[in-house]
């Protein structure tokens, strides 16, 4: 079951819409590039990457976020780019305690695909200890 099915909300389908994501100042590598951590949900996110819809605006999204958190600025990823990676995004701002124009990118579905495909490589027990 995808996140969209679970919450009974439609997945975003405008491939050109750029979703907005705040990046903490510590999520950069030493050479100045973004760390993958910035665009990948952790365990506590339950497989959902939190973003804002394009209509919020990059500056407003940033200014709203820094009222309670730190950010180095707003970065973006398009719905089309996500779909190319088999990642659906869902406007879930109608859910309780969710800000206006919030969209979650569903990484749980990607995990499901990977689960269905099975492991591609499993190192031996001896190699991992």
């Amino acid at each position, binding site marked *: 079951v995808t996140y969209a099915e679970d919450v009974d909300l439609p997945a975003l389908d405008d491939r050109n819409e750029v979703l907005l994501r705040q990046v903490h100042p*510590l*999520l950069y590598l030493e*050479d100045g590039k973004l760390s*993958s951590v910035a665009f990948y949900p*952790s365990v506590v*996110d339950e497989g959902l990457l939190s973003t804002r819809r394009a209509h919020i605006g990059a500056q407003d999204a940033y200014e709203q976020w820094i009222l309670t958190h730190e950010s180095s600025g707003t970065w973006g990823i398009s719905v089309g780019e996500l779909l190319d990676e088999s990642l659906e995004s869902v406007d879930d701002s109608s859910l309780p305690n969710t800000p206006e124009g919030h969209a979650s990118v569903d990484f749980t579905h990607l995990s499901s695909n990977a689960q269905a495909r099975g492991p591609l490589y499993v190192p031996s027990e001896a*190699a991992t200890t």
Partner: protein
Amino acid sequence: VKDSLTIVVDAIAASSVASSTPVSVPRSDRDVSVITYDVPFQSAFFRTLAPRSEAASFFSFYFSRKPSPTEQSATSASRQEVHFMSRISSIRELQNGWFGDKSIAPSPSLISWVEANCRAFMTAPVSIVPVADGSIALQWADERNEYTAELHDDGRMVFLVDDLESDNMTEAETQLNVEALSRFIASGILG
């Protein structure tokens, strides 16, 4: 270094031009200590020839020579050391909720482990990045792969290799230990 030099040069220019008094430059700062020059000459130079902007250009050129391999290595090591200490200090200040309401700050014990055991790896281009689940990631890349070592407070260590061309990711999990981490950083090979 350039910013530091500009500040130093501006200070010299201002005081030298105004008073003609020889100016000494402190040599204690690591970045500035490579500056050696004849102060009376520079005083005259500033006084008679150069406005401050030209003086800054002169110094930028003069001191932007390519460092020797030894200097380059030392500079790189110093930069990595500064990056390491700065990151450790910043990570230590994180509070729960730092990257979203559910995010967890790395624990003091995990930070101390990284500080005590990972400093030696900073001669390589390895970056330290906090993760929202409270772990700390060491990340680096080469032309083929991105490498991540996630260090968890519960004693787990997860190695990930992301093939940049195919986007396939492989991973291995083991217990937190310096030897395995060192091997992974040196070789990029899981296990």
